[in-house]
């Protein structure tokens, strides 16, 4: 083999966010020689702004396989957390006490019940336990709910973690596995040659790898067509508020409200189409704060210390895209908006297939080819 054909790495993962880090960590754990090509500090970085739920309830309406995939990750999350702790000493504070999704009116509660029923009535749905609770049942677990809370749905599979620690654990672990983290390496072009890939990065640097994984979030839309794939993702803005640290009072993640392991209360969940603008809008933060105070009036006493906006990576139907290129079979794309929930799958289920060089049939449903079907008139 000539020097020109030699690959520097078994796999180059493009994207150092949670999807890329989890996948790269899973690959490195299997002994693959891995490089992670990341952008610099100034980049669109949803992984720094997320809400850190490991959430199952309600997911998969319209694609039951996504429900099963999510549940599988939730089931493996404890294993991931202990593997990371053993390797790095970092506790990512994963807990799975079950999650509540509050309803602020009887109508909302009924909608929720119907939605979960429809979800579980799907033919291929892997069913799991959930419960629709009335106000009294919710108050038994959380006596401090506000008068507007009509009830909630509850699912024992839901949990949360400290996603910044998760991020740090993956990167510490990658380093221990000997993976190369290469920041400031925005990929400009990808060439498929001699069974491998050459990635030209900003400034003219070049990285060669036998296989590549595009896990670049929003930038995968630009990169995927370079290797015969597509990732038609768009940004959806979400605001998050975090309060000062307070003594533990909230054991459960409650949809858009959760108390972190360190005591701050995170309040989230706005959905805005605002392009790549991450400016914080006071009107949005006050709306989500007001809703949170209706759920738990005692939150009104806490000081807000920080607010931010981040951009979810959404495919046209909101479900993930996992696909292997037909024309350049060593190239894979992985993108989703649930990089925390699905981290265990990316590290423990997806990575082994990429290491083996082939995505099995069960991934066909996640192919972006599903977006090529013309809409029925």
């Amino acid at each position, binding site marked *: 083999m000539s020097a020109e054909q030699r690959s520097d790495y078994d796999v180059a993962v493009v994207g150092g966010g949670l999807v890329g880090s989890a996948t790269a960590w899973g690959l490195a754990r299997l002994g693959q020689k891995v490089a992670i090509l990341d952008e610099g500090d100034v980049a669109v970085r949803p992984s720094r702004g997320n809400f850190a739920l490991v959430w199952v309830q309600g997911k998969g309406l319209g694609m039951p396989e996504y429900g099963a995939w999510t549940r599988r990750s939730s089931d493996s999350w404890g294993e991931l957390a202990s593997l990371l702790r053993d390797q790095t000493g970092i506790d990512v504070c994963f807990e799975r006490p079950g999650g509540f999704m509050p309803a602020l009116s009887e109508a909302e509660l009924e909608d929720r019940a119907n939605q979960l029923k429809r979800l579980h009535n799907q033919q291929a749905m892997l069913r799991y336990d959930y419960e629709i609770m009335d106000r009294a049942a919710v108050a038994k677990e959380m006596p401090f709910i506000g008068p507007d809370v009509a009830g909630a749905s509850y699912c024992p599979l839901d949990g949360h973690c400290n996603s910044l620690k998760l991020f740090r654990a993956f990167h510490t672990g990658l380093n221990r596995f000997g993976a190369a983290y290469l920041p400031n390496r925005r990929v400009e072009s990808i060439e498929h040659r001699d069974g491998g890939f050459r990635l030209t990065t900003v400034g003219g640097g070049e990285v060669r790898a036998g296989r590549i994984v595009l896990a670049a979030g929003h930038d995968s839309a630009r990169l995927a067509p370079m290797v015969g794939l597509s990732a038609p993702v768009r940004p959806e803005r979400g605001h998050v508020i975090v309060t000062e*640290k307070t*003594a533990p009072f909230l054991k459960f993640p409650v949809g858009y409200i959760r108390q972190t392991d360190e005591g701050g209360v995170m309040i989230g969940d706005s959905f805005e189409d605002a392009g790549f603008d991450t400016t914080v809008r006071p009107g949005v933060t006050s709306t989500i704060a007001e809703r949170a105070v209706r759920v738990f009036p005692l939150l009104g006493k806490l000081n807000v210390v920080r607010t931010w906006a981040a951009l979810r990576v959404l495919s046209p139907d909101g479900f993930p895209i996992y696909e292997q290129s037909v024309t350049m079979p060593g190239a894979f794309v992985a993108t989703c908006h649930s990089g925390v929930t699905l981290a265990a799958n990316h590290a423990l289920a997806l990575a082994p297939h990429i290491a083996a060089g082939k995505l099995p049939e069960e991934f066909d449903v996640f192919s972006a080819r599903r977006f090529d079907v013309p809409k029925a008139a």
Partner: protein
Amino acid sequence: MFRRLHDAAGERVPFTVDGRAAEALAGDTVAAALLANGITVCRNTPVSGAPRSPYCMMGVCFDCLVTIDDVGNRQGCQVRVAPGMRIETQDGKREIDR
């Protein structure tokens, strides 16, 4: 550790720290009054439990957090002492309902 300037003057303002009687001069901030009364540790941090004192005295560092009249995590350097004010040092996280 801190002494007042000799020409410091003003009306005396009574207040309490952790239930004990103390005195400030009119115009003192809570943080300054604590330091003038020899109280240098106003809180232990919520995560590691490390002791903290007022540091920047201008609203930036948030190290001087104390409970004032039952409201937790207030910046001592941004509030003037008022007669009868109840100031409490904090140990760890504030409680949500105070």
